[in-house]
């Protein structure tokens, strides 16, 4: 895939504090990349560097094959959408959309044409004459996207654009952003701390922590084969269940924790010549079964239900098994109550093993 954005050995430090460390990243043309991480991981900083709003300390940024490391934000061919919308409060929506074009001395008829087109795509035509204060949150964010749209930019940068909206609106706009991407097929980089946004929107997700990218892969890959324990914990809700123990050989490889032993014949190790070592064993709540289906599962455990969270579509149960608290995702209609004794089971082939010390995937 042809690279639309290339980041080469990028680093950024504020005094002694290194925010980004020797970061490399290639984003393909038309790709939707999501930068995901908890706050302070450097994801917004990276986006600001790409936009040119922060001066980098080292390394290079290429957009569309052009070295833009020292370029002004407006000369980089980007459009940007901010969390707080950042609409100019004293201008109408139309004024907001055309401000950048006027700065670039685009001829007036063309400005009008581009604004009209963007307004049509985003269905904000009736709002063009209004001031931002007279818009709802969703309308404001749509206007903000419009401001990026009129620039005819190759690259769209989104900095947590949906974080200020309520849950329902967030879901609606998420769909709209995805449709927009399918329609325009621009390169988009999207920063969020919301794993649902990341999973639903991304072609690839880059999970960041401490100014580094921990894993860069498709949502499926990240969900199914997290590269480290941190990634495994970060993606998925409720979070993955972990057992602390040891992998031993003899009678095939087995994971031993407390009185339990899980057979690992079907587990796909990264390194087939794996040597026994202490490890973490992780299994997702949705890969566990309970009740009758558990009878046929390769691993079965007895536990007691401590807490039940009915979600309608699913029911989450927290089950205590020998001192471990495990989340199990059950059917929405399942009737389980706190205090029930329950059998839970899972298939170790769907598990994730991580090295005890490095916490990397095994």
């Amino acid at each position, binding site marked *: 895939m042809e690279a639309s954005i290339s980041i080469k050995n990028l680093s950024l430090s504020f005094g002694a504090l290194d925010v980004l460390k020797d970061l490399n990243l290639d984003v393909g043309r038309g790709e939707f990349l999501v930068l995901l991480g908890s706050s302070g991981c450097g994801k917004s900083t990276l986006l*600001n560097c790409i*936009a*040119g*709003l922060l001066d980098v300390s080292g390394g290079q940024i290429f957009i569309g094959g052009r070295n833009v490391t020292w370029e*002004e*934000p*407006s*000369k980089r061919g*980007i*459009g*940007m959408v*901010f*969390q*707080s*919308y*950042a*609409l*100019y*409060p*004293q201008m109408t929506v139309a004024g907001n959309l055309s*401000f*950048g074009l006027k*700065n*670039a001395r685009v001829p007036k008829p063309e400005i009008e044409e581009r604004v009209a087109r963007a307004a049509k795509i985003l269905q904000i035509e009736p709002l063009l004459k209004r001031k*931002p*204060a007279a818009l709802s949150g969703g309308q*404001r964010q749509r206007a903000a996207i419009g*401001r990026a749209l009129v*620039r005819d930019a190759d690259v769209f940068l989104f*900095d947590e654009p949906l974080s200020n909206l309520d849950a329902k609106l967030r879901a609606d706009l998420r769909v709209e952003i995805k449709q927009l991407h399918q329609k325009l097929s621009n390169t988009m980089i999207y920063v969020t701390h919301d794993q649902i946004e990341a999973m639903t929107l991304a072609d690839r997700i880059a999970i960041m922590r401490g100014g580094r990218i921990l894993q860069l892969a498709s949502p499926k890959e990240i969900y199914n084969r997290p590269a480290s324990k941190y990634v495994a914990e970060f993606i998925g809700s409720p979070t993955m269940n972990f057992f602390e123990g040891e992998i031993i050989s003899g009678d095939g490889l087995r994971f031993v924790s407390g009185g339990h032993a899980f057979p690992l014949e079907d587990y796909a190790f990264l390194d087939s010549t794996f040597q026994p070592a202490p490890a973490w064993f992780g299994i997702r709540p949705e890969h566990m079964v309970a009740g009758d289906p558990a009878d046929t599962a390769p691993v079965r455990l007895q536990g007691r239900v401590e807490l039940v969270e009915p979600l309608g579509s699913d029911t989450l149960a927290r089950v205590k098994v020998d001192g471990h608290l495990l989340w199990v995702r059950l059917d929405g209609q399942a009737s389980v109550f706190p205090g029930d004794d329950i059998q839970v089971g899972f298939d170790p082939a769907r598990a994730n093993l991580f090295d005890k010390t490095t916490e990397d995937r095994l």
Partner: protein
Amino acid sequence: MTKTPHLLKNSLKYRAEAGAAGGDVSLRLAEVPSEAARVENGPAGRKPRKVLSRRNIIVYGTLIVVCLYYLLPLYVMIVTSLKGMPEIRIGNIFSPPLEVTFQPWVKAWAEACTGLNCDGLSRGFFNSVRILIPSVILSIVIASVNGYALANWRFKGADTFFTILIVGAFIPYQVMLYPLVIMLREIGLYGSLTGLVIVHTIFGMPILTLLFRNYFASVPQELFKAARVDGAGFWRIYFRIMVPMSLPIFVVAMILQVTGIWNDFLFGVVYTKPDLYPMTVQLNNIVNSTQGVKEYNVNMAATILTGLVPLTVYFISGKLFVRGIAAGAVKG
């Protein structure tokens, strides 16, 4: 009335539950004929408050006393300025004028004598205006650009620069008085209105810059970033984004400067010469130069006239002033 069916439905549901729970259904039915009658004896609704509570007496009493304390001198001034000299000599300073006369006001404005000339406050008034307008405009323009640069364009040494500027606000004027005389003399502006305008502009700089910097810093950074992505430069962001958003703080700065400069006495007397004296200095000279009798009514009228400009500014822009001072967050 439209809500009644809904309420009825609720109460029916309640009855059904009560029945299911096996309680005494007939009794409960009797207790709950309608929603309104459900209120039991005892506290209900809004808590009653006594008008003449101890707290109210203390609060309003204090406020009234303080108001009187501040308003009484003003009352005396106005009343005295409307009396003729014979009436003043009777000595009842609180009594209203028996015979209202505006002669003292006319005299204060146009005829009152200082030791040097006899054209009243009018000369000082126009001098003050000629000092005020350029000083206010110049200081606000420079300080707002300063504050904007310090808040949004983090240049190297910005913090040091800002600290030096703020420290400047704490140096007593007296220390700088004489050095400034020499500096103005060297550039040939000593004794001119231009010189005084420059002095006022410089002395307004620390507090105004602080004011503008803090205001601009409270404008969301993302707005500034968006404007940069939109290709706006230093001046375009300043004029098109920042200034239109900042009317309240400009009003606050204007009020501070208008009152400060209008009320200034020290710089006026030091850096100008007699025929360029501002109104405050002129007032002082009128009040302090006595020929024969001390004309209290003229002095009172002159003092009120001098205070009229800041007073008017307060009344016109008081609301904006409060809004500007209180403005912390700017909603986008």
